[in-house]
Structure formats: C-alpha cells, structure tokens
C-alpha cells in the first residue's frame, strides 16, 4: 500500500458543521438580525483580526488569557476578536460616527474566538448582537432589554429568561464602606460567585491570595518613613522624595525614582483594611440572599440608611420594559467583566436538566473613553451566542 502522510485532525473544541447545522445557525441568526433591522439597527462588519491592544485595553485580565494572540508577518501583535464591542467602537470612533451629537444603533453577526481552557465550550462561536450609542437615560436600558426580549420572541423560544442586575446598585452599597476602587472592583467581579459556591470565608481567602489585603509594606519601615497614613500626603511625599533618593541605587530599569514614589503613595492610598473589606462582603452577601424583588432591595438599603439612586434607576428601567414576562431581577448578574457600569443582564436557558447562559449585555458608558475616544453619551449592547441558540432551536 502507498505510504501516505497522517491526515490532519481538527483542533480541539472546534466544530465542522454539516448542512443541517449550517442552516439552523443561519436561520436563528437571520431571525434575530431581521428583528434588529426592523427596530432600526443598521448592520456593520469589522475585521476578525485586530491589534491585540484593542482587546486588552477593553477587558480585564480574564479575557486576555482567553485571547488567540499571535504575531502577524510584519511582527505586529494581533488577536482574533473575542467579541465585537471593542471593534465596533474602534470603527465608529475612527470614522467620526461616534460623537456626542448623534445617536447610532448598529447590529453585527459573525464568529468570535475565545481560548476556553475547559473541554466543554467551543473556542469559535457565532455572535449576533447590537450596540446602542447615544443615550444615558434609563429608557435606553429598557429598550435594550426589550430588544433582547423581542429577539427571544422572534426565535420562538419560551424557555428563555432575562435576568437583570445592576452594577450601580452594588456600587452604591459598597460606597458606604471605606474601600479603594481596586477592592470594590474585586468584590463586584466576585459577587456572582458569592453565596452560590462561595461564602464569606472563601471570598476573604481569595482576596488574600490576590494580595488585596496583605500588600507588602515592609519597605516603609526599611526606609524609616514615619507618615504612613493618607491624611498627610504632602508630608509623606516629601519624606519619600528625600529618603528614596538616598536609598535607591541602580538598576531602575525603565522606571524613575519619581515613578516609584508615585506608586508607593498610590499603594498606601489604596490599602484595604480587613475589617472594612469583611463588612462590605457580608453586606453584599446579605443583598444577594434577597429574593430579588425591588421592594426587598429597597428595604435592605433603607434599613442601612443608604439612599441609593441606582436602585431607583433599576426600578425605572424595569418599569419601562413593556413585556416583562421573561424579565427577572437578579443582582447576582455581574457578567464578570470590569467594563460594565450600570444595568447588566444574562439571557438564561432553563430546562429540566440544563441551565446555561446563551447571551447577555448591559451598559458600559466608560468603554469608548477607555479606548481613547472623547465620547460621553452612553453606550449599551447585547449579544447572543447564536450557536447555542440554534442548538436549542434544533431540540425544540
């Protein structure tokens, strides 16, 4: 027999599709896109490959470890898109369409790539989604939820549910504790895990492991710095300046003594006390244990004498949704991404033996600025994992 080379195998967690499967994906994608079209969302398409920086600037560490990153033949670090949002903002921003005068609504569809380390998720999947720029009003949040709700209706999927949370509500609660922003961010990101598989102890351990609570300050003693408190920054600054210049020798690398001084001050300011952190965590746990009705959330804040304008916003957002049959309030939803600033939602599929998230979205007003665009008029969006949607359609 003729000796042939070994046939090449498909990559792990990637999929070849047959005609049935291709049609099913196309059908579900078309249903959502036509619906978005009828709501005034115009289509946009962006490259699958972008500069790595675009995605890293947008996301926290979580997504950057999932990026497919490589050097292109010119030696530029590029990545396959993990989602569309950053590319859409780049495209609209660079063409001047993202401005504070006009609102703009776009929709998109196509494959995205994420290197999940588990063996159950596909590493390439199709997203269909929408972005809405130009409104900070609660009505826009309601519109986005309705848009997701309407898409589900078009797909004819009864077993879906939209679980709405609000980062602002959590921030309002946390603002009553003396915590630096890094600790707040940590808690909000971890919050979706609090109380489910995690309790107070686990959260505290994780915070310790990430050195949130025990940063090393021994060097202050070594330098014999007397003013370690934040109440006299000027004095601290002066002390550091003289002592660092005497103490620091080469090598410094790319950093200057001034860099080191600035960072030391920042580090002292953002020092987290164990007591504050632990109390804040407990209070979040309490909020999570509520059944999610707005009345109970309001009572919880009132009992603690906290006036939360964000709870009122959430109420207005939910009131503004005309068909609420599939909408549930669930403050556990945080989407685990640092860039959300307000309302967030997950689209859940529930049946007897399965519960999975097949899409989601929310508000991320600061994202255009983080990507370098002078824009201050609000940004929201959502997306479906259309592969999962079509799988469910195939079953039902």
């Amino acid at each position, binding site marked *: 027999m003729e000796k042939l080379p070994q046939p090449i*195998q498909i990559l792990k967690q990637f999929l070849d599709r047959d005609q049935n499967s291709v049609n099913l994906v196309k059908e579900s994608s078309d249903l959502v896109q036509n619906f978005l079209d009828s709501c005034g969302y115009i289509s946009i398409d962006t490259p699958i490959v972008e500069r790595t920086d675009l995605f*890293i600037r947008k996301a*926290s*560490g979580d997504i*950057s*470890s999932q990026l497919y990153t490589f050097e292109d033949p010119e030696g530029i670090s590029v990545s396959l898109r993990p989602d569309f949002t950053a590319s859409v903002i780049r495209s609209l921003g660079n063409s001047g369409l993202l401005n504070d005068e006009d609102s703009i609504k776009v929709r998109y569809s196509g494959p995205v790539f994420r290197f999940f380390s588990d063996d159950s998720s596909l590493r390439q999947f199709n997203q269909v989604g929408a972005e809405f720029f130009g409104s900070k009003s609660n009505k826009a949040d309601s519109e986005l939820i309705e848009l997701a709700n309407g898409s589900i209706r078009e797909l004819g999927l009864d077993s879906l549910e939209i679980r709405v949370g609000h980062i602002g509500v959590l921030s309002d609660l946390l603002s009553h504790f003396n915590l630096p922003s890094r600790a707040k961010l940590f808690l909000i990101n971890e919050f979706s895990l609090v109380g489910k598989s995690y309790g107070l102890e686990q959260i505290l351990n994780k915070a310790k492991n*990430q*050195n*949130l609570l025990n*940063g*090393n300050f021994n*060097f202050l003693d*070594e*330098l014999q710095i007397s003013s370690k408190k934040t109440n006299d920054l000027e004095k601290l600054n002066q002390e550091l300046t003289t002592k*660092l210049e005497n*103490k*620091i*020798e*080469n*090598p*410094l*690398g*790319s*950093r200057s003594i001034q*860099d*080191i001084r*600035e*960072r*030391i001050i*920042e*580090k002292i300011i953002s020092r987290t006390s164990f007591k504050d952190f632990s109390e804040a965590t407990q209070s979040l746990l309490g909020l999570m244990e509520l059944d999610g009705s707005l009345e109970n959330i309001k009572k919880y804040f009132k009992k603690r004498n906290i006036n939360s304008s964000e709870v009122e916003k959430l109420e207005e957002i939910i009131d503004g949704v005309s068909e609420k049959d599939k909408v549930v309030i669930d403050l556990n939803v945080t989407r685990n991404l640092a860039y959300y600033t307000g309302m967030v939602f997950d689209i859940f599929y529930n049946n007897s033996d399965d519960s999975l998230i097949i899409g989601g979205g929310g508000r991320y007003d600061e994202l255009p600025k983080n990507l370098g665009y002078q824009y201050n008029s609000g940004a929201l969006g959502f997306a479906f994992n259309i592969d999962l949607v079509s799988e469910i359609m195939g079953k039902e």
Partner: protein
Amino acid sequence: MNKLRLLLPSEGALSEGALNLLEKNNISVIKEKSRKYIGYIKGMNVDVLFQRSSDITEEVESGNGDLGIVGLDRYYEYRKNSESTGVIIQNLGFGDAKLVLACPNSWLDVSYLSDLSDVAIQLRNKGLDLRIATKYPKLVRNFLKQAGVNYFVLVSASGGFEAAPILGYADMIADITVTGTTIRDNDLKILKDGIVFESQASLIGKKTLIPEGLIASQDLKKIINEILNYKF
C-alpha cells in the same frame, strides 16, 4: 528489528542525573568508544542518543527519538504540539529548578504580581514597555496573562542574562534558579508569588508508544520493557 531510541541530555547536571538514575535502575548504558553521542543499553533493544537538553523535546516530537529525559520546563516551553507527545514520569527525582520572575531591588513598591500589573500600566501610560528578559517566552507569557499582567515585552536572551537590568536591555528577568544566589548578586529580588514554573527531570515519549493504562511507576526498567513489548 526496530530499536527504541532513548534521548539523554549530553551535558550538565541533567546528564549526570539521568545516567545515575539509569544505573540505580540496573540499566547500564554502554557508550561506543568512537562515537561520543551514541550508545546502547546492555541487554535491551534500546539505542541511547545524547543530545543537547534544549533539543530533546523537538527530537522526540519530530520522531527522531522515542523517549527522552528532559527538564519539564524545557518540555513545556519547546513543545509545539500537545497531541504527539506526553509526560510518562513527571518527576524522576532530580533536576529540581524553579523558573522565577525577578525585578530590581530598587523597585521598593513591588513584591507581588499585582504590583507588577500596576507597574506595567504605569509604564504603558508613559509610552514605555515593561521589558522582561527570558529564555522561556511561552511559559512566561502564559503565566503573566493568567496573573492579569497585560503589558510587557519579552526580550529573548541567552547565557547569563541576570545582568540584563544592570546593562539596561531589560527591566526584569524570568530565569531558572536553584538557589537564587545569582539573582541576589545582580541586585534583583524574586517576586513573592513569582514562581512561573517548578521543574524537575521527567521522562517524555511519543504518545503512540505509550501503552494504554500504563501506570506511571518510578521503575524505569519496567516502563521501558512495557513500551518495548507494546510497540517493538
């Protein structure tokens, strides 16, 4: 009849360790006098090829060898394809070393990876990069990304590059250390959570050669015999 080809490191502590281990397992390697890099195992159908440590992973992957004794750090760094080779014995009991991240002592504010992540952003905002010299770009890149350190440039290095920060071509190093002395001598400190990888000598092999259900024991002779019975 085909012979099984075992690749051993040709020099350094790993080479010595591998030969000692084989001897302890009653496996005697006979070197051919005229050819320094080739030998065989007495009484077994096995050729022994002595190779540079840095080449062994690639040689097993490309089929020029069947089994190899190699530092686990180099195996994971140089492996191109996770499907063709595997680790048969994870820890052969020698060759312990750590791949660590070290920064200048003068960076008083840096003790943990979380500090490094802040410094990377600080430099980035000034239009500079955090430059890390290493021979292990793959392991270091993955480690830093998992740790949320996003902005850095890896400077490839060879030889004793602990002096890179003093010489100015890098800010930090990620290198193998056993005792940490060289790092300290160069005015550097290891980050408290900066162990990128803990390595030791391992036995690796082509996946197609490893019998299903092979129980990884430390009995090298038994393992080699099982592999020989399975495919040779």
